[in-house]
């Protein structure tokens, strides 16, 4: 790590930027299914609740 900060100082921003891109892209990719599932479950529950109410009325 010391070598990274001393000798390779000019390369450090490129290394840091690469790892940031790597983590940000994969994190976004990992979070997406979790958000999509939550949204889908909420929408389905709303739809089924509406259906139940409609059935109870008729």
């Amino acid at each position, binding site marked *: *790590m010391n*070598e*990274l900060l001393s*000798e*390779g100082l*000019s*390369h*450090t921003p*490129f*290394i840091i*930027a*690469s*790892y940031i*891109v*790597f983590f940000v*892209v*994969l994190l*976004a*990719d*990992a979070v*997406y*299914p*979790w958000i*999509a*599932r939550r949204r*889908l*479950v909420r929408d*389905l*529950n709303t739809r*089924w609740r509406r259906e139940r109410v409609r059935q109870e009325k008729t």
Partner: protein
Amino acid sequence: MNPILYWFHKLGSPPTFYAFAGKLMPWLLVLTLISGGIGLYWGLFVAPADYLQGESVRIIYIHVPAAWMSMAIYAFMAVNAIFALVWRTKIAEILAMAAAPIGAAFTFITLVSGSLWGRPTWGTYWTWDARLTSQLVLLFLYFGVIGLYSAIEDRRRAARAASLLILVGVINLPIIRYSVEWWSTLHQPATIRLVGESSMHASMLWPLLIMAIATKFYFAWALLARSRVMVLRQESGKAWVRDMLESKEPRP
């Protein structure tokens, strides 16, 4: 019926697949975090700097595994596309479509990290070199598959149309692989070989291989996570989905 064949046949059923994927996912996530943690620590803090590239060699611990994944995922999609087109397997359609955004993510990482490695090493962020250009074409192919799948309302017809595009795009895989041999490129030829000796020292090769394994575990985890959402969406009209979501248990 052969028990293994029977198991695969059973896995083709959406409820079985959904439950199986749910059980497998936590293990895959743990394996991703352990192997990724070891690989990153080794690559960033233990592995030596390269005598020519200096410290910028540390970018390869994410660049090379991401590049391998970008091609491997496309090949995986092509295999599933064949199953989707020939046998019309619903899970194969879902797996092929769920893999596309993950493949696009890895291809994007490959291009950006390669560009950031190229600046201190080659003196430029980008050149219309055969390897770089064919990798960019791969990213566009991924975008094409995602776009085509989103453009058609009927999910099953959309998956079959996108599967056809996947199979057409397979031609790009050997072009990427052999571009450094077929054309005179700025990108160096392969330093790691499956057959024969690799020209990379073991102190650098091991963290690279561990990162390659970590990205494979990540892909399996992300693929199952996306596939489960797609299964849920496509099967939302079925009784098993309603029973599962309305019951106290969130997962079967």
